[in-house]
């Protein structure tokens, strides 16, 4: 396997009246098709690390390499292009656009990328929704869906542009146990069936149990990587 995402000695600080170090000297590699869980207590820097790996935030020191490309010199536009083409996000609160239908939410990244015609975008959105078992909800608005369904729509949107890596921030944190199991299985299948890498932040030990690898982070430092399975 080859590393699709690599962090090298990444440090992120917040400046202000009281400077805070969110992440300190963190290094890690994620292989293609690997399922990695980042665990740790609240406030330890899990989400901050995920944002750095997902190119939503920029490290003060160190580098993040995506598919072998050093992103540290990338400008705002190039980072946005990387997020659009090679990364997909799933957040704890699904974060779908309320005024758009489920299908429109999934077509958004494809339309922005502009590689497919509008009809092809709709076809692909339908296929992804079908795969995630929410095709019958395509014409509905997000508020008409259950929490689990919304999260599956969010996963479909994350897969819209066929990314290399899916980054999930507490994807089951707001779901009941049945929905959690369903989302967990979907993410697990993505790595096996679609060869996607998944990096998920979670508190949930059951969720972390299905990961290939678990990374523990305490006070902004990667602590003791341990094998999962």
């Amino acid at each position, binding site marked *: 396997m080859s590393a699709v995402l690599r962090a090298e000695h990444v440090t992120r600080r917040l400046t202000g009246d009281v400077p805070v170090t969110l992440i300190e000297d963190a290094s890690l590699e994620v292989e293609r098709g690997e399922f990695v869980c980042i665990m740790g207590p609240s406030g330890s820097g899990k989400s901050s690390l995920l944002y750095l790996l997902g190119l939503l935030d920029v490290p003060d020191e160190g580098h993040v390499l995506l598919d072998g490309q050093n992103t540290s010199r990338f400008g*705002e536009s190039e980072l946005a292009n990387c997020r659009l083409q090679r990364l997909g996000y799933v*957040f704890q609160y699904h974060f779908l656009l309320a*005024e758009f239908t489920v299908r*429109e939410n999934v077509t*958004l990244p494809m*339309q*922005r990328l502009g590689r497919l015609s*509008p009809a092809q975008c709709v076809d692909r959105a339908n296929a992804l929704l079908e795969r995630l078992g929410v095709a019958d909800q395509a014409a509905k608005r997000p508020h008409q869906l259950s929490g689990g369904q919304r999260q599956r729509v969010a996963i479909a949107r994350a897969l819209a542009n066929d990314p290399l890596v899916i980054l999930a921030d507490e994807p089951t944190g707001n779901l009941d146990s049945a929905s959690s199991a369903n989302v967990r299985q979907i993410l697990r299948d993505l790595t096996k069936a679609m060869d996607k890498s998944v990096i998920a932040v979670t508190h949930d030990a059951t969720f972390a149990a299905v990961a290939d690898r678990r990374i523990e982070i305490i006070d902004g430092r990667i602590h003791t990587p341990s094998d999962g399975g």
Partner: protein
Amino acid sequence: MQISLAVASTHLRSRLRATLVSLGGVVLGVAFFLAVSSLMRGSEKDFLKRLIDNNPHITVYDEYRLPEVQPAQLLWPDGAVQVSHVKPRAEPRGIRAYREKLAFVESLPGIRVAPVLTDSAVLLFAGLQQGVTISGIVPAKMKTVTTLEEKIVEGSLDALAADSNGIVLGTGLAQKFHLHLGSTVSVVTGAGTNHGLRVVGLFRTGNASYDEGQTFVLLKRAQALLERPDRVNRFVIQLDDATTARNVAAQIESSIGYKSVSWIEASEDILSLLLVRNIIMYSVVSAILVVASFGIYNTLSTIVIEKTRDIAILKSIGFHARDVRTIFLLEGLIIGCVGSAFGLVAGAILMRVLANVALRPPGVTEIVHLPVWWGPEQFALATTFALCSCLAAAYLPAQRASRVHPVEILRGAT
């Protein structure tokens, strides 16, 4: 762009009431912009038409713009000796060899010209006397350069042409002297000539001082009364295209030497007044659109605050800052376009209504309509200004939205 447009229209629909209020502001702004500017342009056109129609386009006077250079000065421009007490040549005032100069002016294309000899005289009748302006004219030529014939309420210019002792007066003067057609009045000129003239025509222009102080006789009669044989002291010129007056006047002046004043030069103060009036008018009507743009700013600012999370989502899935800026500028543009479209229709209706308003000013017997004029440039100007106002109003919220940092929003989200 398509996806940005979809997001923009969704945002506006999500704040429908505020959007409609903003839209209403633009509609009213554009409509009033059109209505007021059409009234101002209408009154300006009406005023200029009266100015152009009732006055000569060019008047050639029997004087020079710069004093004549003395022969000695021409010969010795740097001479140390000054010739003083030069006695001017005594000759009747007027345009020298006016027939040749008249022929030259008449030969220019698109020109109608009438020679006139004008001076002061005193009118005497039944013990009354009044100073008047007496103008010697050639009726056939005068008809082609003035609206005098249209203003004649009794008699005619043809009657003047047929009667070498005839005089045409204003109705104001006739009333003052109790004169009517066929009455005979005495005219005394500065040359000391006293001659009886018969009233053959009465005119009314509506301008009281003109109607009480202007008289017309035949040119030859005026030359005799004023003892200035074969002289005229001005050419009255009308052009097919009044807008060329300045250039034609310059051409005439450079050719015949006498001072030629176009209506534009003669009315410079009025034209500059109209310009100032236009600036004031456009400032006032533009203020309506500026106020409307504050409404748009308010609406879009609210949308930015309400949709901060959506903006963060869009950025996290790969939308650029410029995409987000475009979305909010498009929102301003949508309000501008839709508001302008409805505003143009409302403005056109308002202009039609104004054009049909009938007024009867005090002391005037005829019904007058508001002078309304509109052209495509007003519609274009109103639309352009509305769109610029809307885009300007959208710019700050768009900038703020484009600077939203997704991590800050995602961290704080629950």
